[in-house]
């Protein structure tokens, strides 16, 4: 078995999700190659344990990794592999189905467990059911959830061979016009050890900001329910849930979130869940390890005081 992992990275560094995807690949084979789109990140990539080759393409041609030429590139490379894996992020989900279709292969999304090299476990119905899926395709295209696999480690003595590829596929169909990336000093949502998440119960943008101080005290990332994002309290990339990000931190503190199944889908695998809500019947309490039935505004103040005491 030979496996290709599609790396997700920015100009400077690999995204954490890439490390988790490598672990999934390495659990099936010791023949794992990593595709990167920028020589800048190839040194970092070569140091990941379990990688054999780092394949590098010319960044100018694949800038912003648009699907229109990255997918044909992946489809072309795929022919030499038994598996092609990408993180189950908006990046991986954009690219991989297109690449699979170009190869005339089915694909399996959001793999959380590898049962055998052709059989995988994945959540369906917002995580309310788990499907065991078997594929007899010649090439398995999979997106992998970070929450299902530990991160691969850096190994200073590991040196994968770096290979430059000169496959040039033009893109005349789409054009990058700009981006608004939310830069924050806080940890990334999907990599954070602690997450403080707010819902509609916060009632306003100003109130949502009350969570920032708490998050900073805890060294936590901020998350939100869809209702909070829709109401404009938080940016879209804060959304946790079936259709937002899937997270599994050590501690998830849900404040003013009711716990709709679509929200639970994104956080119910957290190690410890805390819920603060003034409605004792809120469904979030069914998954919370520690529930506090109280007004969130008073609780927030008390919590801050209590933590400042430490």
């Amino acid at each position, binding site marked *: 078995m030979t496996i290709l992992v599609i790396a997700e990275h920015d100009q400077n560094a690999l995204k954490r999700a890439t490390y988790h995807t490598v672990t999934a690949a390495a659990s099936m084979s010791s023949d794992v190659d990593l595709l990167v789109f920028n020589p800048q990140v190839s040194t970092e990539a070569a140091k990941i344990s379990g990688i054999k080759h780092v394949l590098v393409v010319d960044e100018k041609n694949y800038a912003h990794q648009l*699907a*229109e030429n990255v*997918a044909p590139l992946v489809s072309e490379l795929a022919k030499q592999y038994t598996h092609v894996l990408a993180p189950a*992020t*908006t*990046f991986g*989900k*954009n690219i991989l*189905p*297109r690449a*699979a*279709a*170009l190869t*005339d*292969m*089915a*694909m*399996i999304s959001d793999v959380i467990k590898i049962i055998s090299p052709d*059989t995988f476990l994945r*959540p*369906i*119905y*917002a995580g*309310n*059911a*788990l*499907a*065991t*899926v*078997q*594929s007899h*395709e010649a090439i398995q295209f999979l997106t992998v959830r970070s929450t299902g696999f530990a991160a691969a480690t850096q190994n200073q003595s590991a040196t994968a061979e770096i290979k430059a590829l000169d496959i040039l596929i033009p893109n*005349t*169909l*789409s*054009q*990058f016009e700009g*981006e*608004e990336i*939310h830069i924050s000093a806080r940890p990334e949502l999907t990599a954070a050890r602690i997450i403080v998440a707010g819902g509609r119960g916060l009632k306003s943008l100003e109130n949502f900001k009350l969570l920032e101080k708490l998050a900073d005290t*805890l060294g936590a990332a901020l998350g939100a329910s869809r209702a909070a994002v*829709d109401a404009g309290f938080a*940016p*879209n*990339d804060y959304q946790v849930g*079936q*259709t937002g990000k899937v997270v599994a931190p050590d501690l998830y503190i849900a404040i003013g979130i009711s716990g709709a199944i*679509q929200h639970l889908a994104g956080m119910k695998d957290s190690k410890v*869940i*805390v819920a603060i809500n003034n409605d004792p019947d809120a469904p979030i309490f069914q998954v*919370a*390890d*520690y*529930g*506090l039935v*109280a007004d969130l505004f008073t609780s927030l103040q*008390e*919590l801050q005081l*209590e*933590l400042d005491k430490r």
Partner: protein
Amino acid sequence: MKVLVAVKRVIDFKTHIRIKADQTGVETANVKMSMNPFDEIAVEEAVRLKEQGIATEIIVVSIGSNACQETLRSALAMGADRAILIQTEEKIQPLAAAKIFKALAEKEMPRLIILGKQAIDDDNNQTGQMLAGLLQWPQGTFVSKVEVLQDKVKVTREIDGGLEMLSLTMPAVITTDLRLNEPRFISLPNIVQAKRKTIDIIPLTEFKVDTKPRLQILKVTPPEKRKSGVKVNSVAELVQKLKDEAQVLS
């Protein structure tokens, strides 16, 4: 310009699902079914394009059993012009759905195809991307804003780090995210009017595409249940428990 919109019939998002005892799947008999919420957003966007004078005809299409006619009727009531049911009793996987939509697109020649970003039953999030690939059209996935210019469509995409703006040369495929729009409420007169619109029923077998399932679902099982937790009486107790019992705070 013509706009094609895919609508899938799924278990209503508010319904608690039941897994069949024999683990073959999820119970769908006698369960409330609705249009996939992302597809409702797709239909709404198409209708708005028509109201702006950009779209001239909206064709909604569903692949599935005769029951999907109900879903198509809702889309017609929202403002679509005509509907196509590609009739089959088989369960159609994303690659097969994409091939069927491709065949239909080659016949209908739309300038824009709008799909949901994911169907909330299988949560695959694949069909739009596969369709765009097969057609060799550009794709705008997870879209929260659409602006049609001459021969291009500008889209804003919701990505993990924020937003990304792309310009796509039409014809193009778009998949919708939640914040693209808020679907309208369907009024009674619209429902009545929709009854006069046509639904063409085409048997799947008329499309010469390979729809054989590539993936086997070996079993469907419930996820592990979380142990039920405790209620704490105060913030002080909460913090103490997080430190001493759960050991997630130092």
